[in-house]
């Protein structure tokens, strides 16, 4: 029996050895991964009472700061001097609910936890030193304020970016919230504030400009046009689309009508100026087919996770499943317009779905920020830059500890395609649906959208995307405005409702930056 007992001892040593190995995996080797796990709110608890850097706007307004308080449990509390104005960007930093926004994304920098901060000064190990960094955002308080005032109390989103860099200049969604209330160290008061926000109409906690997707409607036509240009199927001179009131795609019996049943047609410039549904549905269904459309939507960032420095962005969607290939378009249309790269377009089972997608309906949905980036990519000669909100992080001695280098995300189109689209979009502002966008002395391009929702009572999202810059220079601002569908406002079109907001924001953003003095 002693043999077995000794073997039993060996078994126990092995079992406990396995425990020891697993403990090492958790406590030593995997500790950093676990500490950074998004489900792990422990680091926040650790940080909550520590010093923390400020968040400031590009024009120097204080957006988030830590103040000392008289509380039995905590020495410090986070406050947000601009109230709800930047709530969706800064996010909140709460003992009870964790963090969101910049507070979450740049927690390490704000709390001084990056290795660069910790080891920048070895003396800091010996004497206590403030290693926290202030985050300077790319957003401007003046532009943000204009966006907010122009949108007013209508639900919607306004995003302005610098198309040359991807820097976000303003990002506003309404309704929004004041993060100070969530950061209250009193758990009961914070919880009450949160419950109020959760119950409120329109989900104010959700930063819709990058976390919610909407039908882009006719603003999507610039992408359809880009696909046409990029594949060589469409040029400035031809084709000339027939002047009709509606278009019926192959394999479908349901006609797609023009806005308010009007007849329209003509060359690319004309059909974009008047936003002809018939022309763009025909372009997608008869000239392009599914694959070139999918490729171009994805080249403009659809179906990809947005590489933005804010947590949990929504993925904009362009449908990719159109069933199986049925036949070339020549089976259905005698002598069709030219197809992609000289080939006849392919017809799939759901060609009608593709036709709807081409005008931003069906399952096409985009975040407002992506639509601003679409306008920006066109203005930036086809180059879509990565969007970002952090300009740089500066520690308390003035050293820059982190800085965002602008970088290319996707080359959406060739420069020539972008140049043609610029001509077309600038024409839309000169004499088309986006004429409300025109600003004296500046080159402005735009495209409106009115995305009808399939609700019993007709309702629509009003959109506009656009860009502006000094004449003869690359555009320095791109913008997207969405005014969400509201009851009793069936007639709201992008040109009438969204254009004035976009114009105000463009104008403000074109003014040189002035440091905030208050």
């Amino acid at each position: 029996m002693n043999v077995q007992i000794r073997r039993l001892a060996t078994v126990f040593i092995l079992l406990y050895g396995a425990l020891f190995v697993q403990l090492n995996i958790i406590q030593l080797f995997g500790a950093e991964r676990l500490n950074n796990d998004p489900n792990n709110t422990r680091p926040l608890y650790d940080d909550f009472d520590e010093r923390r850097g400020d968040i400031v706007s590009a024009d120097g307004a204080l957006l988030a700061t830590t103040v000392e308080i008289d509380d039995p449990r905590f020495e410090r509390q986070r406050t947000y001097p601009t109230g709800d104005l930047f709530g969706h960007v800064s996010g909140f930093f709460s003992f009870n609910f964790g963090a969101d926004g910049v507070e979450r994304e740049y927690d390490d920098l704000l709390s001084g936890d990056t290795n660069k901060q910790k080891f920048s000064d070895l003396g800091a190990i010996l004497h206590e030193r403030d290693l926290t960094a202030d985050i300077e955002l790319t957003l401007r308080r003046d532009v943000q304020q204009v966006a907010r005032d122009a949108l007013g109390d209508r639900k919607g989103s306004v995003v302005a970016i610098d198309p040359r860099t991807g820097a976000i200049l303003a990002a506003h969604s309404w309704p929004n919230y004041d993060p100070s209330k969530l950061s209250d160290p009193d758990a009961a008061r914070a919880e009450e504030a949160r419950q109020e926000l959760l119950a409120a109409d329109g989900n104010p906690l959700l930063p819709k400009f990058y976390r919610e997707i909407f039908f882009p409607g006719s603003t999507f036509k610039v992408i359809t046009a880009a696909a046409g240009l990029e594949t060589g199927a469409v040029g400035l001179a031809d084709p000339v689309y027939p002047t009709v009131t509606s278009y019926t795609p192959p394999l479908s019996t349901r006609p797609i009508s023009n806005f308010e049943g009007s007849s329209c047609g003509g060359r690319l410039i004309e059909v974009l100026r008047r936003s002809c549904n018939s022309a763009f549905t025909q372009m997608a269904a008869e000239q392009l087919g599914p694959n070139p459309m999918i490729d171009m939507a994805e080249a403009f960032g659809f179906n990809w996770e947005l590489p933005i420095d804010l947590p949990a962005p929504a993925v904009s969607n362009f449908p990719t499943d159109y069933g199986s290939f049925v036949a070339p378009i020549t089976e259905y249309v005698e002598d069709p317009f030219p197809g992609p790269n000289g080939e006849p377009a392919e017809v799939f089972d759901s060609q009608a779905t593709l036709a709807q997608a081409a005008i931003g309906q069906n399952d096409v949905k985009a975040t407002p920020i992506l639509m601003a980036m679409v306008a920006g990519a066109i203005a930036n000669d086809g180059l879509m830059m990565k969007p970002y909100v952090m300009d740089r992080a500066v520690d308390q001695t003035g050293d820059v500890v982190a800085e965002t280098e602008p970088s290319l995300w996707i080359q959406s189109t060739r420069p020539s395609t972008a140049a043609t689209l610029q001509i077309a979009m600038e024409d839309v502002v000169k004499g088309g649906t986006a004429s409300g966008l025109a600003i004296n002395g500046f080159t402005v391009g735009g495209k409106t959208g009115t995305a009808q929702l399939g609700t019993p009572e007709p309702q629509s999202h009003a959109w506009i995307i656009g860009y502006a810059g000094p004449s003869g220079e690359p555009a320095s601002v791109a913008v997207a405005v969405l005014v969400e569908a509201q009851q009793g406002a069936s007639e709201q079109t992008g040109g009438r409702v969204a254009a004035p907001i976009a114009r105000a924001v463009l104008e403000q953003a074109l003014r040189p930056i002035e440091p905030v003095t208050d």
Partner: protein
Amino acid sequence: MKSRRRSAELGLIVLASAITGGAYVLASLGWSASVPANIGPFLGVVIGLLLFAHLANRWLAPRADPVLLPLAALLNGLGYVMIARLAGDLGDDAADLPGLQANWVAVSIAAYVAVLLFVRRVRSLERYRYILAVIGLFLLIVPLIPGIGREINGARIWASIGPVNFQPGEFAKLALAVFFAAYLTDKRELLQQATFRIGRLRLPEPRHLGPIILAWGISVLVMISEKDLGSSLLFFAMFVVLLWVATEKVSYVLLGTALFSAGAYFAWAQFDHVRERISTWIDPWSVAKDEGFQTVEAAFALADGGLTGSGLGLGQPDRIPEVETDFIFAAIGEELGLIGSTAILIAYLLMIGSGLRIAVRASRTFDKLLAVGLTTLVGVQAFIIIGGVIRLVPLTGITLPFVSYGGSSLLANYVLLALLVRLSDEVEGGADQVALAASEKPTESVA
């Protein structure tokens, strides 16, 4: 030699008391930045209780292994400090926990001394094997009796008589360990002869194996009906180990493993709560807010502790549900780090080593088997819950011996410890030889 052993024990007990007292002060400093007001009385009680047990050893089991009691004292002391420290964070419901636990420690040490006093020879228990089997099975069934049994946190393992709640299963495991050891002592030779054949498999006569399979089967069935998976696994392990050691046949281990696999598969197929445990074990992250919360928070706690820990009273172990009982190991790992959690592992390994050394040195089969059974109970129980907390094995709720909050568990484990100490004393030439020596040399003092 015996006096040297007792001196070593005394030294180790002083060390365990010092560690406990130091930890108590540190936890208080960490939590409220002040030295606990009752540190004097606290240390007095700790040292008093341990000295009491130590003197009982000097008097009743002078030749016993000198590390068993100090190891239990260390685990118990650290566990108590953790419970007292957690009570401050867990809110009003937990305010009574340290006081209750302190009472249970006192009761348990009294029981420890009582067992040493009344069980002068472990072999005297051998006679009561069937009575103990019946008592053990009865204790297992008690929680199922309407009016007495109570279900807490999904497991029906509690019995309430008047104001007292206890887990009869903790005592059942001791009774059944004695029964298994006694029964196998009788039947081991018969069980070694495999004369009964099923196909190519050779098994002992069913009538020899019958009663023990029956006792085990009933206990496992009862525990499945009480949803007490941890105890079920513990019994199974003890049963297989004892059969293996008694018969010296690996085929029992293989058979046991096969039976266990079949049982585990059956449980997995039949019970939602078992399936949930398994899926949570494989991937707690996808259910991190629900079923996996406890496991995930335990991992975060251990990771937060890192190598050296946050320091006593400075972590956030109160975020883990059940941290004062089943998950206390995660609290220790968080506040004392990998160093502290490894120390706990070593303490159990040393205890297992002492237990198995007793088994090796024992000459009588019953003593050997009982020492193996008792050691296996402690060793496997600690392994199951630590492994569950750190996700090495699926989580099955069971207490961490000597450390967790819980009176039944503490009392049963001190009784178990007393039996091991008694065995050790006998094995090292305790009562028998002392009596023999006394008859030959009437001048030598027995004490």
